[in-house]
């Protein structure tokens, strides 16, 4: 830290001139950031909303017709679009339901003085820093009929399972892949939560005679509800934005059961030449993600004091 000289009371400038100068300085510091932000975040949102009211193609963008809310109406009448939304929601719920207990268990585990704990933590974190393209590519081969998982199953005497082409298995397979990818993240968040529980809370509970299991359910889990809300939101948003499993592994098949929303948006815009409809779906995604974030803010505002 830089050496500080004598502490002196700062004479606060009070004049209007002074605060105006401060505003100018602040504007100078903020301008580059705000300009780029406005151009590349806010302008696209406006364009997106405009596009969602049009019918046009990318190949010939000058030919466009204003269709009002027709694209949005189509979302709710098109069984394919509804299926996409359903699939994406199931994907999100499945991920959350699996990742919360697994992340919590892993964190409890990592919170103990185990030998090799550092290696374990590095290992579960590897997929978090690996790109989703590589994860999807790797799992594509893990789950293929001739892949590693089936080789293990075969050597244990089971038959081959077509994980990615069987209607009943494809979505669960990509859920498990995503849990594998993100569980390290959940574990680290829970670990942070566990370590922020003050020691005296735990001591008091031990004095009260609470056993391990009881303590976990009655004290630790409630104390970690903030962390849990956070994990739920991060994983839901991750799931809503997932694209690569569908793009790299399944192309939405079998029977549209892995047709994730962002992949559908990509396909509608670039392959099926209907960027207006794709924009309507994007607006829906936008609204969904913002709603979830707002709900999270709301929930996190109620702080638990410990």
């Amino acid at each position, binding site marked *: 830290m830089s050496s500080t000289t004598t502490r002196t009371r700062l004479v606060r400038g009070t004049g209007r001139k002074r605060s105006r100068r401060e505003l100018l300085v602040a504007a100078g510091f903020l301008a580059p950031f705000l300009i780029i932000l406005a151009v590349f975040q806010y302008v696209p949102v406006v364009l997106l909303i405009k596009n969602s009211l049009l019918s046009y193609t990318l190949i010939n963008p000058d030919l466009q017709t204003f269709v009002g809310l027709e694209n949005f109406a189509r979302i709710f009448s098109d069984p394919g679009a509804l299926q996409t939304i359903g699939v994406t929601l199931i994907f999100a719920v499945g991920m959350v339901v699996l990742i919360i207990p697994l992340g919590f268990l892993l964190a409890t585990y990592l919170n103990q003085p185990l030998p090799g704990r550092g290696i374990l933590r590095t290992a579960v974190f590897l997929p978090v820093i690996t790109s989703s393209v590589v994860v999807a590519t790797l799992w594509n081969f893990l789950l293929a*009929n001739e892949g590693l998982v089936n080789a293990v199953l075969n050597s244990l005497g089971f038959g081959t399972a077509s994980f990615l*082409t069987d209607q009943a298995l494809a979505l669960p397979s990509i859920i498990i892949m995503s849990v594998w990818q993100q569980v390290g993240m959940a574990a680290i968040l829970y670990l942070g939560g566990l370590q922020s529980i003050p020691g005296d809370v735990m001591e008091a509970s031990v004095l009260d005679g609470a056993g391990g299991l009881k303590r976990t359910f009655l004290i630790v889990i409630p104390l970690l509800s903030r962390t849990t809300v956070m994990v739920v939101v991060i994983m839901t948003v991750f799931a809503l934005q997932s694209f690569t499993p569908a793009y790299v592994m399944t192309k939405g*098949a079998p029977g549209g059961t892995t047709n994730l929303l962002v992949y559908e948006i990509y396909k509608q815009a670039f392959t099926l030449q209907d960027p207006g409809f794709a924009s309507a779906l994007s607006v829906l995604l936008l609204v969904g993600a913002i709603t979830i974030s707002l709900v999270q803010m709301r929930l996190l505002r109620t702080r638990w004091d410990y």
Partner: protein
Amino acid sequence: MYNNFTSRRRRSRLILTTLAIGALASSVVACSPSAPETSANCPDGSAKLKVLRSTTNVPTDAQMADYTTKTNGCVTFDVTDVPFGQYADKVSVLSSSANAPDIYGYDLPETANYASKGVLLPLDDYLPEGWKDDVLPATLTEGSYEGKVYTMGVQQDALGLYYNKTLTDQAGITVPTTLDTAWTWEQARDAMLKCQQGTPGNPTIYGLAPTQLGSGTPGPVYSDLLYLRSAGDPKAPSDSSAYKTFYAISPDGKEVDGWLNTPEAVEAAGFYQSLYNGDKAVTSKTGRPNAFLDGKACFDMFHAGQVQPLKDAQVSFDWGVAPMPYIKTPIVHTGAITVAASAKSKQADAAAEFVVAVSTGAAAKEYNQKNGRLPTLNSVYKELPEFQEPPLSLFYSELEKWGQPRPPTTHFSQYSQIVENALKNIAYGGDPKDELDQAVTKLSPLMSR
């Protein structure tokens, strides 16, 4: 204080300037070279043509290098490779942009689609004399839109059923090698089952190699729509469902309901499904690549382009090619990757001249000969005896006798994507009728636009 303020402002200005310069520099890099310049070496002007190509397809590096040599280095190329499955996506993004390509190497049935959107340059003013009489009618039809020629076709193609003779002999199967003795699909599947080793669905030797066409997963229109279409009958009355099944799209290219989802098509789709599922499965949904080349498959559905690799690989087994099996009417799809010029090219003449050069004369002959791809020009065909002998002759006669274009429509990208998806779902176990009906529901609004 003030002093500091300016220094900070200077700094942030510096940042913006740096950004602007960066942006500028990169946009300069991205810009295409301006209009042709003439020089002593290049009296007709020099050109650098941007090529958007499907990976490993035409125009090949050799074709372009030859052309550069032929023009004394005045025409050079800048190539972008895109995987076949992404080609249509890239065209839709690029064709309207400032850095649109000058040359497209695309799949022939997309001609009507691209031409109707103003992407392709009509070639009628550049066509050599007598070309229309020399070219195969299938190429001329598919390469034209509303009476204008947009691409000349460098090659033609058809699917055949490659067989591993060592394996089929072991299994005691005699494979037909002439069109009039071709198998029906029932016969073919029986033979595949007989030759297959291991459990159906997960064999050690596949009856039929997992597909290597399209994206390497089941469903490509080029191969798998053939099951459905071959269940139809072009000689039936034109309002019958047998007739409509055969064409799989209305003649104006705008309707699919009652063409794609006929009872005949649904039944054929059920048969197609049985190749992947149940105790009569002869192939696999996610198979190992190159199964046929590695001697792990008895049969393989592939186009003439595999003859050369098989010869080059000096495989340890004997092999041959059988005609495509069919359900009621024999059919193969025509059309292959072809080359065309962009309507938006600033170097339209140079682009069109290149297209004509690779599609005709010595260049076409050399390409067809070296790569074993079927010639689309009668004159070239006559000069290349290998296409008149087996195994290549079989592909050529299939093309002539059974060839049909893929369903012609200005919405081929959408048709191809949605039908492929439906077929993939059927192969994976989806209900054939539901899947085809759904494909129709999705396609109908798109195609009437």
